[in-house]
């Protein structure tokens, strides 16, 4: 700091006030999540009385037991994991591949392709025409409805292109001289040096796949292929306790209530994101930068 001068009273007051305000914001952000957590670890019947703010009153993991024993919830979890993994890998690979092609200099028709894509940023069909398309493609009640319609995004393509344009041409030239064709250049040369942008897009899309519940609501009638978010939506928003009861083997026990199961399911659903989050942080901040430079 070039500021050698001692802080004035006003400055010091401002710092204290500002830091305090920031602490308040942090608290307001974390506390609602903490509240759900301590209530989920509290015994169900006792939790009905409310008043649990900082720590479980009667500690119990029975609600979590019930969640892990429920075949319905575990199936939904499996679907979510599968759609997130497969969906993210395909989305990243396919979007990167098209972006690489579009970003090549001297591509015949390149300008038209990009215009073609730009239109899709501003215009769309809306709910019903999209639904009718899925119906005609026989994607209703089909696991691929989570994957194929989400495997490409022109917005992500722009971010990829921004990154690819900064890769020195020398890399490709060298591979070309060695007799590599465009496929193998893309897979062996371009992808390995693009890890930062791949990680960013993978993270964004992974979070989207993990959190998306709407595709399950409109395209899936088959209850065995619901992702966990859709499953939770039916319980939270439509208060479908019957589905909840059906999910618990042997029905609701003495110490487990529909509410405590709901909380436990919410915790289990959110945990993977919260655990992965600190490790992935540096990528999405970087990714926002790439995106914003383009913006």
């Amino acid at each position: 700091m070039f500021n050698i001068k001692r802080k004035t009273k006003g400055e010091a007051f401002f710092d204290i006030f500002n830091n305090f305000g920031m602490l308040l914001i942090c608290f307001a952000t974390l506390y609602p999540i903490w509240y759900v957590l301590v209530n989920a670890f509290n015994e169900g019947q006792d939790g009905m009385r409310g008043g649990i703010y900082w720590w479980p009153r009667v500690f119990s993991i029975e609600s979590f037991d019930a969640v892990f024993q429920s075949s319905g919830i575990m199936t939904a979890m499996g679907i979510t994991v599968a759609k997130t993994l497969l969906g993210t890998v395909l989305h990243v690979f396919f979007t990167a591949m098209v972006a690489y092609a579009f970003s090549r200099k001297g591509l015949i028709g390149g300008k038209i392709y990009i215009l073609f894509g730009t239109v899709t940023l501003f215009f769309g069909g809306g709910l019903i025409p999209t639904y009718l398309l899925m119906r005609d493609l026989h994607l209703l009640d089909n696991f691929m409805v989570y994957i194929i319609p989400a495997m490409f995004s022109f917005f992500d393509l722009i971010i990829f292109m921004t990154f690819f344009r900064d890769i020195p041409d020398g890399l490709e030239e060298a591979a070309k001289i060695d007799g590599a064709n465009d496929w193998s250049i893309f897979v062996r040369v371009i992808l390995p040096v693009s890890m930062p942008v791949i990680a960013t897009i993978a993270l964004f899309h992974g979070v989207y796949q993990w959190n998306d519940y709407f595709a399950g609501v409109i395209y899936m009638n088959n209850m065995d292929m619901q992702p966990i978010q859709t499953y939770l939506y039916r319980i939270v928003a439509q208060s479908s306790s019957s589905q909840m009861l059906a999910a618990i083997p042997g029905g609701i026990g003495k110490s487990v209530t529909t509410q405590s199961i709901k909380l436990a399911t919410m915790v289990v659903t959110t945990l993977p994101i919260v655990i992965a989050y600190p490790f992935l942080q540096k990528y999405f901040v970087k990714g926002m930068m790439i995106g914003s430079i383009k913006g």
Partner: protein
Amino acid sequence: MPAADAKAARSKWFKKLYSQRHIQIMALLGVLWMIIFNYVPMYGVIIAFKEFNIVKSISEAPWVGFMHFKEFFQDESFVDVMKNTLGISLIKLAIGFPLPIIFALFLNEVRSVGFKKAIQTISYLPHFLSWVILGGILATWLSDVGIINNVLLALNFIDEPISYLAEPSYFWSIIITSDIWKELGWSAIIYLAAIASVSPELYEAATIDGAGRFQKMWYVTLPSIKATISILFILAVSGVLNSNFDQILVLRNSLNESASNVIDIYVYQTGMQQGRYSYSTAVGLFKSLIALILLLIANRVTKKMNDTSLF
């Protein structure tokens, strides 16, 4: 011999095309995907002007002109739907847009680097939770035995628990507050990046001129990030009508319907639940029209204020 020239040029063009055949295949796969998943639904929008039913194909359905649009304007839900859509969206914009900027400005004033990082990390977290989870959190908080009612009862502000989610009068506040809670930190990232790239020399000059902290914010930082603010404002306006759907679908119920029925929800109800495909598509198209008007207004406003605009 011009013909020979043309022939040579053409064969050269084909040679070039052949040499980039792998790349062309990659590019055309992307184009094909866009034709199927973006352009086919765009074509499907014409059912808004037809009497489409599930048995026949789109092209077989008879044209009805603007009948479905008129139907919507005369529908008893029309006033409520429009009021809720514009009300929620505009309030969200008015409060939710400036707050991240203010947050970024004050966060930038935090002196300790470690503390700043920690605040940032914590403040993005809610962005990664789904609306379903948030719906669950809100339902827990706002329930009769939830923390809000407990605290208010303990302080004797109320005599009996209020069922917040069942009261239309509370609905807008719940929607707007929870959205701000979720996105505040995330939206601030871009502004922080923009602030970080402001030249330190400007601040030094301002210090020498005797500017205090708030003066520096006002006269140095804000003008330096004006362009970023403008672009993001235009983007926020263009997306404002679409930003509520996931959230409202989770929090709405039959009791708060008069405050929670927005265009997107109405489209979903009439289209997916009642099977009125043509009508629902017409309503959706009407929404796109409003979004376009809002976008043009926002673009005009930012153009007037400074020289940045999207087009």
